[in-house]
């Protein structure tokens, strides 16, 4: 069965996600997000919860953290370290590609 619709989306970063929306998008509880922000594993270091807004980059990072913690039962700090390394690899791969070298 096939259906067709045309839909317009919102580009994240032009609009950003609230704590509630972000937790839902990552399939975690609000508290999970709060704990990781308070321990510096997520977010931009903004102190007040009412000011927390989340971007595309946060979403990719939080989903990686969640996967490491849930799939590998990793300690949150270890999951954050792995996410840091993935982000570094992403940056290096982008620079290699920009220099005309295929990182794969």
């Amino acid at each position, binding site marked *: 069965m096939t259906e067709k*619709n045309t839909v317009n989306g919102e580009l994240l970063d032009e609009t950003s996600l609230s704590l509630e929306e972000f937790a839902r998008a990552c399939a975690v509880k609000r508290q999970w997000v709060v704990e990781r922000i308070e321990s510096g594993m997520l977010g931009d270091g903004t102190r007040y919860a009412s000011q927390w807004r989340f971007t595309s980059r946060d979403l990719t990072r939080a989903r990686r953290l969640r996967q490491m913690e849930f799939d590998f039962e990793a300690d949150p700090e270890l999951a954050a370290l792995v996410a840091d390394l993935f982000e570094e690899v992403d940056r290096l791969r*982008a620079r290699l590609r920009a220099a005309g070298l295929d990182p794969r």
Partner: protein
Amino acid sequence: MEFKDYYQVLGVDKTAAIPDIKKAYRKLARRYHPDISKEPDAALRMQEINEAKAVLTDPEKRAAYDQLGERYHAGQEFHPPPDWDAGFEFSGSGFEDVDLGEFSDFFANLFGHTGRGTGPRGHQGYQMRGGDRHARIFVDLEDAYQGATRVVTLHVPQTDAQGRVSLHEHELKVHIPKGIKEGQHIRLAGQGHPGVGGGEPGDLYLELHFTPTPDYRVEGKDVFATLRVAPWEAALGAAIDVPTPSGQVHLKIPKGSQGGRKLRLKGRGIPGSAPGDLYFILEVVLPPANTDKARQFYEAMARDMPFNPRQTR
């Protein structure tokens, strides 16, 4: 639909204890992790092992699956018998915490009670928002400049009159706005999983990536391209027509250019409130010395232009 042998998928014995199943799962999850795996079927294998783990590490679902598995083997044609799960009561009715659309038809048929809303294990008088979904799509770099419409095919669980769930193809025509960056997300409100008991549907998040092309490379909002020039264009300077993702431009090559020189076209990278830049990196290409005339030119240069590239800085 084929019967899936989840024990075979994870490479564990039918009597394996949960810690052993988790260990086998983690080993395979590492191998097929989407961020590092180079295996061509990594996404499919990851789906299989996630599915196998979801069933085999849940004692209730594992018991029901084991009873069914006594009569089937991997790959065998399979239709779930009516009330196959009679006598088993699944906590929380189905899988609220997994994305059914990311699992197989086989899994959805057996365990996809989420969203049923009626029936013996339904959610009468209970309302819940549907879960959010995630998908990754590839678009052309030109789409970031002009915007585009893309058709995205999703597998959506649907429930029939008997309450059985199967996956259906759902095509969405999505507008891709201009100015997108690698890895950025688009949120499509209400396009996630259906809600339960009249609850709102979830949202769909599309993670955008550029289709790799030999013509352009992207870093953030900046775009890079190699521009091949003749030695006389680099040495004497030239004005040449070159294609860019936003159309052809007349580009001035400064005289005395060397291979590797970067020419920046400000603001011609990915558009936005702060647009990126487009960089052309010059590559000087030598004409082949494959005719008498060409050889004479090179011989004349060697004679008349004393030049040692190893002493040039």
